[in-house]
């Protein structure tokens, strides 16, 4: 299980990545992140929404109310142009960090 501090740092990347495939509402977003990370990353409501609102304020995502086929109102979020632009350097940054950590742990195991 990944610890809380790292989870916080990767949360933005996880949300932007999962929204890359299309608009999603909060519950579905949390479900997909958990499913795709095999349970390593889990968003509770308390963790997810303040993050979504902050990202919306920054202009990376935009939320809009939609009505599902079952008639339920949901606020769906989609990536904005700024969010798409942000995703690429974020991915690179985290990829570099994980590569560095992998190298470091290999060295210390040798």
């Amino acid at each position: 299980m990944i610890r809380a501090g790292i989870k916080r740092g990767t949360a933005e990347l996880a949300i932007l990545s999962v929204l890359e495939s299309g608009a999603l509402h909060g519950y579905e977003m949390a479900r997909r992140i958990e499913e795709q990370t095999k349970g390593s990353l889990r968003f509770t409501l308390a963790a997810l929404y303040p993050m979504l609102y902050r990202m919306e304020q920054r202009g990376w995502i935009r939320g809009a109310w939609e009505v599902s086929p079952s008639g339920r109102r949901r606020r769906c979020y989609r990536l904005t142009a700024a969010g798409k632009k942000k995703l690429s350097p974020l991915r690179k940054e985290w990829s570099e960090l994980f590569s560095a950590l992998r190298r470091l742990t290999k060295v210390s195991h040798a």
Partner: protein
Amino acid sequence: MRDWEALVEEHLGGLALEPAERADVIAELAAHLAETCEGLRKQGMTEEKAVQRTLSQVEDWQELRRRIQIARRKENIMTNRVKQFWFPSLLTLLLSMGLLMLIERLGPKPWVIAPDHKMGWSLIAPAAESTFLGYFCFL
């Protein structure tokens, strides 16, 4: 069936946001809780257990309220600041710069300071003082 909206409103009713915005947040979080509970029920959980698990999504409602307020209000405060302070300030600065350029081009040119052999430096044109004061009064 549980009234999730009433539950969220009970905990987050004090959110310091515009009424419409607060209603949106409450509706959104209630929908999330309702779907979580339904999902757990579909997995075969009993109603009681599903509600318990759903409620465990928020350990501290007060902390959630605080975090939502910070997340949603930060930019609004800045926008108001921009409207109420930065734009008028910038406009005043630009106007005063323009006025200063006009005064320099068209107005009197009284700021001549020349060395006085006996007293050191002396101001030659006292009219400059009144122009300078007038300009600051205008600002």
